[in-house]
């Protein structure tokens, strides 16, 4: 067997909630894997399908979209669009033969640093099991 596969994950994080949680997790020196590349956006509603698809095209094995819980959005209802958009995009990936599990939507509030770690670690483990994206999209 060759080099063990290390998943490359891109995580879109909203500035007000999830990014704050990620910051807290880092400052508190919580144990975390190194597989996640964070991209800070002002609101999870900013994350367009194009951005998620570009992340996959660029080589991400998994994409996480994270933001405030419904009702807590800093812009009041930006995340309403996210919660409707992401299930459709997951389904679309499935229809084209890419495992829909590679895209996940999670709400993580600013106070939930441990949950941030939990969610990201679980996702990394899942993607490690699924294997690299290139297996499904042979270049």
């Amino acid at each position, binding site marked *: 067997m060759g080099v063990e596969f290390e998943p490359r994950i891109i995580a879109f994080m909203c500035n007000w909630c999830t990014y704050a949680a990620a910051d807290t997790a880092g400052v508190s020196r919580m144990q975390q894997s190194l597989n996640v590349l964070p991209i800070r956006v002002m609101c999870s509603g900013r994350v367009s399908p194009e951005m998620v698809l570009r992340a996959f095209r660029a080589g991400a094995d998994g994409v996480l979209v994270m933001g405030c819980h419904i009702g807590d959005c800093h812009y009041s209802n930006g995340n309403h669009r996210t919660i409707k958009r992401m299930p459709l995009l997951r389904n679309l990936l499935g229809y*084209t033969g890419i495992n829909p599990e590679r895209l996940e939507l999670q709400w993580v509030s600013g106070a939930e640093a441990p949950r941030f770690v939990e969610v990201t670690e679980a996702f990394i483990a899942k993607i490690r099991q699924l294997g690299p994206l290139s297996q499904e999209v042979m270049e």
Partner: protein
Amino acid sequence: MSGNASEGTLEEIRKLVAERLALPVQAGMGVDGVVALRALNGNVAPHVFQKGDDLSELVIEPKYPLMTLVSKLHKRFPQIRLGVVARGCDERAYIEMAKRNQIDPARLTIIGFACTAEEAQACHCLEPYPKQLLVGAPPAPGQVNPLVAEYDAMTLVERRAFWRKQFEKCIKCYGCRNICPECFCEACAMEDKAWVEPGLLAPPFPMFHLIRAMHMASRCVACRECEAACPAHIPLTVLYDLLRRDMESLLGYLPGADMDAKPPLSVTLEETPLRTEAGH
């Protein structure tokens, strides 16, 4: 696509168009022109019939997405009043465009007619007639495309292989985007080099097609014009039909069905709630 439109249907439509053109515009009932198809020297193209035009040139096939022309004229001439000879798909396209301020319902009169059973089948159309039906009786609906009906049974590997083969044929002519009545964005994501790399035909991760499918999710009215315009015969609407199904089950929305239903992806959960929790 050839239907078996009876001469009677065509005569009735021409009569209704003539009547509409004869009404005075000032009275609020008349129109400046009627958008329909015109046959000239054996070829057919969209046309705006105006008072005095020879209506024996008006035909109803092969179909074109006439609402695109209506929208263009409504935007170019803010006072123009139009009629349009419309099939079911034309009316659905109109409903989605009107919601997005591309067509002004107050300045459009629909002269609706039913497709034939053969046309319905060729388009796999479930509602081959407009709500504002003036000519012809609703035929039997077309059967769902077997590929769509049996899609859930396909494994991920099979689906991948299928679309890989299909998208390899794509020559990026943008015909699907150009002919689509719902594609009116002046700044199109498909022309943004951040998303769709110029100089590269469909890569194995087909950005162009995936983005288009997502954009079509709340807009596609299953008129099948994109498939008719594709020189590579890619069955695009298989993907769009699957997403239409999801729009209905997840958000209770069917494009073209209801003028008062708001496009769910743009509005809040209070206006269009999710029916099931985040996807499977």
